[in-house]
């Protein structure tokens, strides 16, 4: 699903990633871990084509991102969902509108859209807060809205960058559960985190980055 070959990326001369290669299969759940500044966010940005690698190749769903034109990027992103530590919700739109926007951009008809948004928000436990403004919600609720927005169009890939960074242990557990169930439905999940608790909760493949290189790739020992 996602393949990286000798990927290098530097920002203003500072190397963020150096010779990174690994593959993530369809339907896999991968923890991307490592200390702050190890290159986790950079790696995710390269996968959703917010940046291009200086060297190396990245294939997403068998498409080489080097050959994806700027005008095709929106269509590439519609097969992905994103969750961020800082939520990135539109503050002037309701919960419903925030989630619906992810479908509106791809021209989903209003009738289908209404059902899908209500279902997805129901699944993350926010069926009763459709008309609430994001700023009136708790951090855990905001992250669930964000997750609903990421999942509403049934993405093939879910990319999450420190989704539990602002949440306590219980709420982190809830978010992880929601991601697990998305993964169970077939979505490939890449979860960047430095939260060791999460790794202990669910033993899945862990790719550990250190100073821009893959330091470890495998399943943690029981």
């Amino acid at each position, binding site marked *: 699903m996602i393949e990286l070959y000798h990927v290098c990326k530097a920002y203003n001369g500072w190397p963020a990633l150096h010779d990174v290669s690994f593959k993530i299969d369809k339907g896999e759940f991968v923890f991307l871990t490592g200390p702050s500044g190890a290159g986790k966010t950079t790696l995710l940005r390269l996968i959703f084509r917010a940046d291009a690698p200086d060297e190396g190749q990245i294939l997403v769903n068998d498409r080489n991102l080097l050959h994806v034109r700027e005008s095709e990027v929106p269509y590439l992103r519609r097969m992905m969902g*994103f969750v961020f530590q800082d939520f990135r919700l539109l503050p002037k739109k309701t919960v419903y509108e925030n989630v619906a926007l992810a479908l509106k951009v791809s021209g989903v008809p*209003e009738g289908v859209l209404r059902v899908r948004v209500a279902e997805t928000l129901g699944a993350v436990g926010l069926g009763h807060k459709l008309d609430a403004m994001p700023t009136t919600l708790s951090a855990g609720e905001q992250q669930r809205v964000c997750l609903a*927005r990421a999942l509403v169009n049934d993405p093939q890939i879910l990319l999450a960058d420190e989704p539990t960074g602002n949440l306590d242990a219980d709420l982190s557990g809830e978010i992880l559960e929601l991601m697990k169930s998305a993964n169970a439905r077939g979505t490939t999940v890449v979860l960047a985190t430095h939260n060791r608790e999460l790794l202990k909760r669910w033993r899945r493949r862990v790719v550990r980055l250190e100073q821009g290189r893959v330091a470890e790739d495998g399943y943690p020992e029981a």
Partner: protein
Amino acid sequence: MTRLRYLLHEAVDNIKSNRTTTFVALATTTFTMLAMGVFLLLYLNVQEALGSLREEIKVIVYLRDAVSSQAVARVRAEIGRDPAVAGIEYVSREQALAAFRVQFPSEERLLSGLGDNPFPASLVIKVSPTYRSSEQVRELVQKLNALSETEEVLYSQDWIENVAVALRSLKVLGLGIGAVLAASMVTILANTIRLTLHARRDEIEIMKLIGATTAFIKTPFVLEGALLGGAGALCSLEARARFARSSSCGACSGWPRPSWPSGRPSGASDAGWCSCQTA
């Protein structure tokens, strides 16, 4: 259709929810357009006024006293064939005397002292619009002077040249000021747009992340810009209309009427000084 409705709804929503930015953008558009509009109004009016002064160019041919009425008819026909001549009006000696009596009733005594009618008959020639440059008028005057029936030809050479120079300078000045105004208008509006975009860069970033195409992101901004621009233009039009209504004539209010340093030239009048009077 749903999409179009959504994009339009977005534009209106953005205007509503970003009141301060909207107000600043609206005010900027209004003031820049108002400045440009008032300038254009003044420029066009002054140009129109100068142009209409040019339309008034007339040449007066005073005829010798001994010229018979048949000779007058012949001269008239001859002059009339010249393409530079748009119209000829004959003023007989009696008509000239009567006109003098009407204009200067207090000078009746002067006339009785002279006894005989001292006024010569004349032909007032209106110059055709395409022959109004000072060289062309001078050429016509030379031809008229050469006629044996001509006593004297009067025309305001200085006036014609002054108007021509004034029109030329006005064009250069207008182009200069217009260019500066247009450049500042474009800069100010471009900066206003950049500021509104900057204020909403997070929103744009999020839209891009969830797979919105550039057109999908841009359209509400363009619609919003069109709505604001239209509103700004309407505001500036209204302001200009008020400015015009506040005096009898908006364009030339407070402007001095043209003064004639060497006396009013023949045919020149205040009418047409401002197009609002002729309209």
